[in-house]
């Protein structure tokens, strides 16, 4: 009898335990789920967003109209065409010092477009003009400053001066140059000597997201899918592997002179901006910072540390100084239209339809500039780097069916060398992460259905 009572009691305890545990578990989830649903239903506030392509480099007689595409996103508005009205002003001055004058922005009749014409008295023959815009919802609920540094770091427009003209004519596809050496090669896969490929529904294969080459010729490829870098020392067939604590999504990278490396992760979630992480040569994370603006497109090592090209300003902003991260609010105050290079100069690039304008800019203004025209459509400028007294520029030429890169060596007398390069972009990588220039050698990150590789092209320039 006692045994039966004990057995019954045991079953009762088990049943009660299971029942109350299950109820508590379900209740806990439902409470959490309703919290998620409550958060999901939170109304968003009014947001103002604007984009603008600055006239970074102008030629004589060219009219400078400033045009902004601006949006007011009001979650309460039923129809998007009925979103709130926008008003704005441009603050502009001759050169880069002195007080700004206020110009009202007006609609040009195109929905969402605000424009202002630059008065002739503002433009100067040598130093051009600097400006920023403030655009706000007419209700005053939200506003945006572009570039985000405002008066601290305005956009700069410079006269090209006596630019060296180069005409590329019509591009002959199918005559790309052979590399002088394949310095790294690796197959897709998940093995220790493979490189990973992000794949998914609707996802173009993404792999070997970026690379860099140090001055001694060591090649480092970012294998973002495996959260590591692969490092090839000179002449080595197989890479060494260095794990990194990264998100595993598309990223760009830059090697620092102290052996550390910076990874710029473009994917940002929940309203955050892209993340820059610094790792030592063993893969230990040293520090990180967010970018100042919502979008970033490349990271490069400058004379004083890494700089990042950010949007919507289109400005280069420093991410670190002497190894210490620079917070977003300081980054935006140091934004520049050009990328800093050695000697205190900057290199400024503007692609305008089928023309690319390039300028080396010093404290006194444009020191040397080029205008490169092409009959074949020009897409992005992948690289613009000084090489001695010259500049190496890599841009993509394209039609609706074909594309290749052209690498140009631009000198004081004009075009010194031109080679065509296969686009070699079977897999997606960082948008501007495909080329690096090291001591007269141009390196290209390429991919095929079999894997990724890095080729070296010797530019054979003095």
């Amino acid at each position, binding site marked *: 009898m006692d045994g039966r009572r004990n057995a019954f009691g045991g079953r009762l305890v088990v049943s009660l*335990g299971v029942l109350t*545990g299950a109820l508590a578990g379900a209740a806990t989830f439902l409470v959490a789920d309703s919290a998620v649903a409550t958060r999901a239903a939170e109304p968003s506030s009014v947001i103002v967003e604007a984009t603008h392509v600055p006239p970074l480099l102008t030629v004589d007689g060219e009219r400078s109209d400033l045009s902004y595409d601006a949006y007011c996103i009001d979650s309460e508005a039923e129809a*998007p065409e009925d979103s709130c009205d926008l008003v704005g002003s441009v603050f502009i001055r001759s050169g880069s010092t002195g007080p700004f004058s206020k110009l009202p922005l007006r609609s040009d009749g195109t929905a969402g477009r605000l424009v202002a014409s630059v008065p002739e008295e503002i433009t100067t023959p040598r130093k051009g003009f600097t400006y920023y815009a403030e655009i706000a919802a007419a209700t005053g609920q939200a506003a945006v400053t572009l570039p985000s540094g405002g008066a601290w770091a305005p956009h700069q427009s410079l006269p090209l001066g006596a630019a060296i003209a180069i005409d590329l004519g019509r591009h002959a596809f199918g005559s790309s140059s052979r590399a002088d050496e394949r310095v790294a090669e690796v197959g897709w896969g998940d093995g220790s000597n493979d490189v990973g490929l992000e794949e998914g529904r609707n996802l*173009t294969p993404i792999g070997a997201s970026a690379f860099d080459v140090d001055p001694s010729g060591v090649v480092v490829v970012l294998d973002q899918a495996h959260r590591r870098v692969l490092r090839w020392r000179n002449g080595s067939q197989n890479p060494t592997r260095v794990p990194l604590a990264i998100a595993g999504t598309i990223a760009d990278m830059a090697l620092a002179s102290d052996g550390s490396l910076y990874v710029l992760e473009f994917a940002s*979630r929940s309203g955050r901006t892209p993340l820059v992480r610094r790792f030592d040569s063993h893969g230990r994370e040293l520090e990180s910072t967010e970018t100042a603006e919502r979008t970033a*497109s490349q990271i490069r090592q400058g004379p004083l540390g890494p700089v990042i090209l950010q949007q919507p300003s289109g400005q280069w902003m420093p991410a670190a100084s002497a190894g210490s991260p620079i917070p977003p609010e300081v980054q935006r105050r140091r934004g520049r239209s050009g990328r800093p290079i050695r000697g205190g100069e900057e290199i400024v690039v503007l692609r305008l339809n089928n023309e690319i304008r390039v300028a080396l800019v010093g404290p006194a203004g444009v020191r040397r500039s080029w205008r490169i025209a092409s009959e074949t459509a020009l897409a992005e400028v992948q690289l613009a780097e000084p090489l001695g007294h010259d500049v190496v520029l890599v841009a993509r030429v394209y039609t609706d069916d074909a594309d290749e890169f052209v690498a140009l060596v631009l000198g004081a007398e004009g075009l010194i060398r031109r080679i065509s390069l296969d686009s070699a972009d079977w897999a997606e990588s960082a948008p501007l992460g495909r080329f690096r220039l090291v001591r007269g050698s141009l390196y290209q990150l390429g991919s095929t259905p079999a894997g990724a590789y890095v080729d070296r092209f010797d530019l054979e320039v003095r």
Partner: protein
Amino acid sequence: MARSHTFLACFVTAFFLTGAGTGAAYHTQFVATNCNTAAPTPTPYITRSGSATVALRARYEGYQWAGGCWNNNDRDDSPNDPTSDPATGGEGGDCSGFTFKVWRESLTESDASFQQWGMLRNVHGPYTASRFKSGHGAPNITASKSALLKMDALASESHIGMIYAPNADGTDQIIEAKGEAYGTNIWTRTYRGSSSYGGVRRTGWSS
């Protein structure tokens, strides 16, 4: 003493099993909990600027293969859905569903009219990226890539994204539903020059 231990063990096991089981099913809950099947509102005209606003409301939201429902809280409410399972019912559009709603198209391919879909209307539309690329459907045409304007699209066989703004260096800011690990956002891309991508335009913009 032994019975209290037995009770505790059963409680803890059941608690976690039930919670985990319900939690594992969470990823199928966003659409079921939040989304609707409301009819679209016909509109007499659309502007590129208005469609950019539609797209911006989806920024920072999630990605769901074959999906088309999102809210506007700047967060992926169903992160890390397994990409191999298209039936997870998570938040967000996929690339072609996102484009369909932003371009305010009809479910009927022969109909080029303008249809305003609510954010929480779960609709994908009849087009894949590949079909957009080839200009399928009465509202859609292929277009030369060098002539593309804001809110035109660049499509490959597997992906489509819309041009939000050009950059000074010749790249484009693309607004797109990229993938489960990325969600929906604006990124700088080089799709325009890539021969994998073709130009696509929704016809009928007022401005």
